[in-house]
């Protein structure tokens, strides 16, 4: 994430360890997360993603180490640290006998929003998140999808600098998922640091600036998205007996079934690869981008 040094949003995690009844959920984690941008945490269930989010949000306490959010210790200066953050963690639930409006008003007031500005802020968030139609219903009557939308609205409404989303597209329909992706892009443009935890690669691959893969309480991979290798799977009209060993602009070529998998060199676009293939007299039937991330994920979490 070039050009992001020195920005306001910084989460520093120093030697953090967390154990649950003998099981190590986080193992001496050292990490620095800087904004703005979108940082995604990938990993199988039980990798420690939610534990990490809970520790940063004071929902849990580390057995060792410390967490500093924008210069504030999350344990000893919790109030100031939490003021910088908005979160949707795990399956965030709200008090069932209160309406969405009452719940969000409470959050605004707790964050020091003047009473006479709350209604206007709620109108903007309600319209922006598409929750206005059920904002006056009690939370206990919401469907799973409505609850998820509401939880996301709660995370972003506070104007926090740092926003957490834990498995955010759970229970969302396809249009809701598309809206969520647009929301993330908008938030990034607004200069926020967005942290997403997921075990779905497809959920985060198109919107992240930095990817971290966790397994068994440790960070096993950490890279900017631009540095993650890209592969192309190419189906030809007819596969030649001898697959060319070198094609300009392509650094690796291998055959996989009835397709050829190639790794384009840095800065080489898909259309340039197609042109090179045509120049070699190879007719392309179909070309698919294969995420290098998938390969990395599979090897690091095996």
């Amino acid at each position, binding site marked *: 994430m070039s050009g992001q040094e020195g920005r306001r949003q910084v989460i520093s995690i120093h030697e953090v360890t967390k154990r649950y009844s003998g099981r190590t959920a986080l193992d001496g984690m050292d990490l620095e997360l800087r904004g703005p941008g979108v940082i995604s945490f990938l990993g199988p269930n039980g990798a420690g993603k939610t534990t990490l989010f*809970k520790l940063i*949000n*004071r*929902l*849990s*306490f580390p057995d060792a180490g410390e967490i500093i959010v924008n210069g504030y210790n999350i344990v000893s200066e*919790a*109030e*100031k640290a*939490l*003021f910088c*953050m908005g*979160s949707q*963690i*795990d*399956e*965030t*639930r*709200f*008090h069932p*006998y*209160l309406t969405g409006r*009452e719940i969000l008003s*409470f*959050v605004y*007031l*707790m*964050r*020091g929003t003047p009473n006479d500005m709350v209604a206007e802020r709620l109108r903007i968030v309600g319209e922006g998140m598409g929750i206005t139609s059920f904002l006056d219903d*009690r939370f206990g009557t919401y469907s799973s999808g409505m609850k998820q939308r509401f939880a996301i609205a*709660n995370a972003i409404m506070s104007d926090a600098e740092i926003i957490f989303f834990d498995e955010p597209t759970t229970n969302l329909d396809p249009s809701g998922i598309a809206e969520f992706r647009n929301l993330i892009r908008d938030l990034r443009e607004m200069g926020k640091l967005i942290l997403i935890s997921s075990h779905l690669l497809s959920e985060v691959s198109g919107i992240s600036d930095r990817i971290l893969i966790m397994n068994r309480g440790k960070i096993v991979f950490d890279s900017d998205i631009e540095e993650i290798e890209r592969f192309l799977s190419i189906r030809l009209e007819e596969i030649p007996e001898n697959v060319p060993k070198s094609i300009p602009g392509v650094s690796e070529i291998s055959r996989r079934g009835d397709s050829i998998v190639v790794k384009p060199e840095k800065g080489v676009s898909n259309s340039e690869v197609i042109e090179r293939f045509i120049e070699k007299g190879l007719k392309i039937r179909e070309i698919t981008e294969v995420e290098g991330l998938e390969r990395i994920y599979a090897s690091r979490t095996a």
Partner: protein
Amino acid sequence: MFQLERYQIIFRYFFLNYFRSRGFYFMLFFVLFISGIMAYASFAYVNDLGNFISVSSGIPLDLKERFLEYFWGMFVPYIALFASAFFGAGAIAGEIEDGTANFTFSLPMNRHSLLVGKFAAAYVSSIFISGIYYIAQSAVYTAIFHTLPSYPILLSFLIAMLFTVSILSIVFLLSSLFRRTLYASLSVVILYFIVFQAMTLISEIFYNTVPQYLINNASGAIFNVYVGITFSATGIIGTLQPAGASFIIYSSLVMACYAIACIVASILIFERRESL
């Protein structure tokens, strides 16, 4: 933001949640039901009090009035206890159990502010329930004796308010220890009706003294302001006169000590409580 303003916001939010909960309506039904039974008993037995308390005849009107209030007052600790358990047991344990902790615990506020705000909401809800009982008591008293209730009923209500603070503090302490509302509720009932009663019984039998430092015995001040008798393992003890000021002050101090100790302990435990 001023701390007091913050407490008010938290109080309003959680009081509204309590007020709309099923538990609130259950307690409302419970207290109306008990009040109805007590009203029936009052009208049925007030002129037969001689047989009821084994006094042959000639009960003065003053004693009759105080006995009526005494019988009503005997149920106040139980109403306060159940109301406190209903509204307080889920204060922390319920947040963790229901998954709302991820929301409330991550709000930018000190944990003790949250606890104090929630305590105030649970307290007002509990007092509201006890208050209905006292209103019913006063109405029945007025209907029977054609006069407004005497001063001791106000004193009894004040002691009941203090008792509610102390019992709610115990409930909050248990709620901060457990992850399930049911465990916190059961624990307070077991503590009050089994542990404290057993300790009282042992003390009465082996040491021939009522341990007034136990909250269940201190709660006697709520109805001893009318008549100073207590039903114990060794029989009925005390006098037909109202309890003295020293007894009431001592009982109130016991309640205050329980309240302070339990609230401090629950704040300390809650500071490090984790969501599931």
